[in-house]
């Protein structure tokens, strides 16, 4: 019990130092934290039409942006910065201290969750002020929104940590990770209406968490009757929770077993 509290305490301290370092890197603030908001402004300005009476494209797009923000901030950011930390000696130094591995993971997860809260708040704010985004009024929808963001953050964090073993160096990490994320975003219906994609893309996307997160976010932001336009004819929230949980558990097992502290 004492150990567990200590691990949490150090994890919390790590999240503070991680956040400090994140905020001091201008490129990470612009390209990770603000990026979905920048995209919202671009897409929201270009596509002014409605996808159904009273439902703007922005309404559809914000759902996708929040979901893909989870992937950018968690998976993409960690899969790129952890190999960099491996190169610059951060991980080796930490490995030589009594800090426990769990504290490091907790620090990363809290960092991602905190960034997601800021990012989502910005998307909702600018979405509703500038692009007439209709925020849900039903409490149940807000509850769904909350667990989707939290479970999505956790899943994305763990998969980012797990995927950090793939890039050979910090310098090459972005070239490995970014295309995967962009392709996944196209296949998962972030930029286009999912059901208008070819069916092989839909089936491939259904293996990965982003499609389910995006769909879950649509259930929050689109009118209820839109559910019939989904592939399954409903929002499939139960299935979404299961798919995300499976990825979370698999990622956790893999990360704990295979995490690399040094390059060799």
């Amino acid at each position, binding site marked *: 019990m004492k150990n567990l509290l200590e691990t949490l305490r150090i994890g919390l*301290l790590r999240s503070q130092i991680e956040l400090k*370092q994140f905020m001091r890197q201008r490129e990470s603030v612009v390209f990770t934290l603000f990026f979905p908001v920048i995209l919202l402004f671009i897409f929201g300005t270009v596509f002014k039409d409605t996808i159904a009476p009273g439902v703007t494209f922005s309404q559809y797009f914000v759902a996708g942006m929040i979901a893909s923000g989870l992937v950018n901030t968690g998976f993409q950011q960690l899969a790129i910065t952890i190999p960099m930390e491996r190169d610059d*000696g*951060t991980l*080796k*130094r930490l490995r030589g*201290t*009594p800090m*426990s591995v769990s504290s490091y993971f907790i620090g990363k997860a809290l960092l991602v969750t905190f960034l997601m809260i800021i990012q989502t708040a910005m998307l909702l704010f600018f979405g509703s002020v500038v692009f007439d985004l209709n925020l849900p009024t039903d409490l149940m929808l807000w509850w769904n929104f909350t667990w989707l963001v939290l479970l999505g953050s956790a899943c994305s964090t763990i998969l980012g940590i797990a995927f950090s073993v793939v890039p050979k160096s910090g310098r090459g990490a972005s070239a490995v990770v970014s295309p995967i994320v962009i392709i996944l975003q196209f296949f998962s219906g972030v930029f286009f209406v999912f059901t208008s994609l070819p069916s092989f893309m839909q089936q491939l996307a259904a293996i990965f968490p982003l499609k389910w997160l995006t769909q879950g976010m649509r259930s929050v932001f689109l009118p209820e009757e839109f559910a019939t336009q989904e592939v399954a004819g409903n929002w499939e929230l139960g299935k979404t929770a299961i798919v995300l949980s499976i990825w979370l558990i698999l990622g956790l097992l893999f990360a704990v077993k295979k995490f690399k502290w040094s390059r060799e």
Partner: protein
Amino acid sequence: MRADAAIEVQGLVKRYGSKNAVDGIDLTVESGEIFALLGPNGAGKTTTVEILEGYRTATSGKVEVLGFDPATTGNSGQRWRNQIGIVLQSTSDAADLSVFETISHYANYYENPRNVEQVIDEVGLREKINSKARQLSGGQRRRLDVALGIIGSPKLLFLDEPTTGFDPEARRSFWELIKVLKAEGKTILLTTHYLDEAQALADRVGVINNGKIIEIATPETLGGRNNAPAKVTWLENGTKQQLLTKDPTIEVIKLNQKFGGSIPELEVLRPNLEEIYLKMIGELK
């Protein structure tokens, strides 16, 4: 295995593929001593040290560091890491954090951390306390590394090539810092490419080559240095004269009588540690 030694190694082997990078090393480092490990690149020095630090696992052999197996994980691994400090080779981490932020953060990891302000004074970074790591010079950056190595008040400190790239003045003042740490009773395992550094700091040096320890001795006696012939040189009839002798005192007295007083441009040179070392590793190549 001796309980009072800081580091005890017996028959250590590390195999990579078909090659033994470390090929049967025996080594004892006493508590409170500075032990320097010397050897050319690829000799097995780094592999040995990284096994002692817990970064790599041994293929075979016995290793005890402060009474623990460095490969230990979990709670006892944490207890062990509480007592050691590691100063890694060139690092560039935490570039956006200030000296104070980094040191005070690392202090949280340890059970009995030292006072952060005191450590900053000791490593001489008081004026840079609010500077970001990326703004520090090479020497200052190494001082930050040492601060992070000693913040947990370790009994044993690993220093891996601590002064590479230093100017002579920075190196001298770094040596003073290491001497202060020794005076505090810390055991230090030092690896270095600089023989004058080993000479200035180490109680004993071990020379490693091709994965084996060739010799362990004090810097003064390594390679039979204390008994090696000395070179006596002087000026006679406008030309430089020299002779090699086991007993330079006798030769100097003879010359003194010959000149009936002071000997012009007299020099008595013993082989320095570097010459002895190069001979040792050269012979074995």
